[in-house]
């Protein structure tokens, strides 16, 4: 990701299209952000750039400082050190300009329970200039609340509150949507719906989305890129390849076989190093062609093959590797 800040100066956020590849100033820049409360350091020298138009995951075990970081990004908490810029505006010095581009749910989607969903939206719409009634209707349709929007929020399920929270957050067409643990308390169907829906928002409305979570598998499905933090420190930022049949690449395959020892010997004859994976399976690094060859060899040698499956290294494995498997909830 190139930073154009130096070249074009401040607050410029035009998008240059180069063969379908979008390059622009990062929507969020965290620069050496530090937060101390008392003597305890919650966030330690965190630097991060969020590219425009991506779903960006913020992953870490409980207590790693995810919510604190988000609170600082939306100005609910002060920074002990460093700087946060949203769309080029400093959150501390140009708060109102910076926050204008942000829609957020911090922790739970809390709304006024004694008002209807629609009244809640009107209330928040009034705090921002130029939001028409049509826009409110549009957003309601977008999050799929339908006629329930006129019921009291008290009667809503958590999933519906989550939707209302999102509606409230995108009302003013922000460039950045910040969601803190959005899947918390949702059932699997709700999680799936939210995921599809966020991806659609990012794609259709061009909103950059920043999602925090401690649910690893969820992040893997939802995000284009994931930052991992632990104990207030950034450990790694990595892109997540979208699921696809990438046949050429060598992956780890697991063969369920009748005789492990014999299977390893057969593999060794083909010049492949296999290792036992439990009582009745072997694991081996291979690409598609090699898998077919190995299978044929096993059958020829009289080794029964009960199953073959590719073992993608999941984000969870990577995460555990990086954080040393400790303190993960």
């Amino acid at each position, binding site marked *: 990701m190139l930073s154009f800040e130096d070249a074009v100066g401040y607050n410029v956020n035009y998008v240059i299209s180069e063969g379908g590849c979008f390059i622009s100033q990062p929507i969020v820049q965290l620069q050496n952000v530090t937060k101390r409360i008392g003597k305890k350091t919650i966030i330690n020298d965190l630097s991060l750039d969020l590219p425009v138009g991506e779903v960006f995951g913020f992953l870490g075990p409980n207590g790693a400082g995810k919510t604190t970081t988000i*609170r600082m990004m939306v100005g609910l*908490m*002060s920074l002990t050190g460093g700087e946060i810029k949203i769309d080029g505006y400093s959150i501390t010095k140009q708060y109102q300009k910076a926050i204008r581009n942000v829609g957020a749910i911090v922790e739970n989607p809390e709304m006024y329970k004694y008002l209807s969903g629609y009244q809640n939206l009107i209330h*928040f719409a009034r705090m921002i200039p130029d939001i028409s009634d049509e826009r409110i209707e549009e957003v309601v349709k977008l999050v799929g609340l339908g006629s329930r929007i006129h019921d009291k929020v008290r009667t809503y399920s958590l999933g519906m509150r989550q939707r209302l929270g999102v509606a409230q957050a995108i009302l003013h067409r922000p460039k950045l949507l910040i969601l803190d643990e959005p899947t918390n308390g949702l059932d699997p169907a709700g999680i799936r719906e939210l995921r599809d829906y966020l991806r659609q928002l990012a794609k259709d409305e061009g909103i950059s989305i920043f999602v925090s979570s401690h649910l690893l598998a969820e992040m893997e499905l939802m995000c284009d890129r994931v930052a991992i933090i632990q104990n207030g420190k950034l450990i790694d930022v990595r892109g997540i390849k979208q699921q696809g049949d990438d046949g050429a690449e060598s992956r780890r395959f697991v063969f369920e076989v009748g005789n492990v020892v014999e299977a390893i010997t057969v593999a060794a004859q083909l010049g492949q190093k296999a290792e036992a994976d439990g009582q009745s399976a072997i694991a081996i690094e291979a690409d598609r062609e090699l898998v077919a060859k190995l299978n044929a060899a096993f059958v020829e040698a009289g080794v029964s093959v009960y199953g073959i499956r590719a073992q993608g290294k999941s984000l969870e494995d990577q995460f555990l590797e990086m954080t040393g498997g400790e303190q993960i909830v």
Partner: protein
Amino acid sequence: MMLGIMLLLVLCISVGTRLFSNYLPSMWSVFNWESVVSFLLITVFTTIVAAGSVADEFTAGTIKLLLIRPWSRSKILLSKYVAVILFALLQTVVLYLFLLAMNALLFGYDSSAASDTIAPLYKGTAAVYFIQYFFYEFISLIVTATMAFMISAVFRSGGLAIGLSLFLILVVNSFVGLFAILNYAWVDYLLFIHLNLVQYLNGTPLREGMTLGFSLAVLGVYYVVFVALTWFVFNKRDVAA
């Protein structure tokens, strides 16, 4: 709704007096004691609203949604405060007009001087006396509401804010007479000694030598401190609700 309760109550008092009283009292004597009761109610209601206004947003977590809008924290706080003051003002004005209309209707309008019926030392008509009475009560009401508002913004807990404010207003206020007879200089500067400004209308202050000007000055100082503290805490503190 609170306003409705209050108006219903004074309506009952007036109608009851009209029906069951052996002689017809002046509208102003009914007016007078209805004002005393009503202002106690208005103070309690306003305190509840003021104490809840900021704290409830914290308790419900909705404060986060308010603060992440493109407005400064000061402006959000100010809008909350203005709402509280308007609530107090509305109640006071409606109460005055309602009492005036209702009692004039039930007992007949009485244009005599205030000294005839309710305030022996007051020079002027009873109607003007009550305008002044309501104005003084309104000043005390604002100071009380501002205090409750401060507790609300500083402690961020609705229950605590309401409880503490009501305790200060009801319990401490009823011991004011006791404090007032203490012969210490610092008692002169206690807030609660000065909240009852109406005492100056009848010419008998709680403590010897106290004047309206002095009371207003003390209230003014307290008011400024309340507002400054509220504003400072609300602007500076991290929101972790």
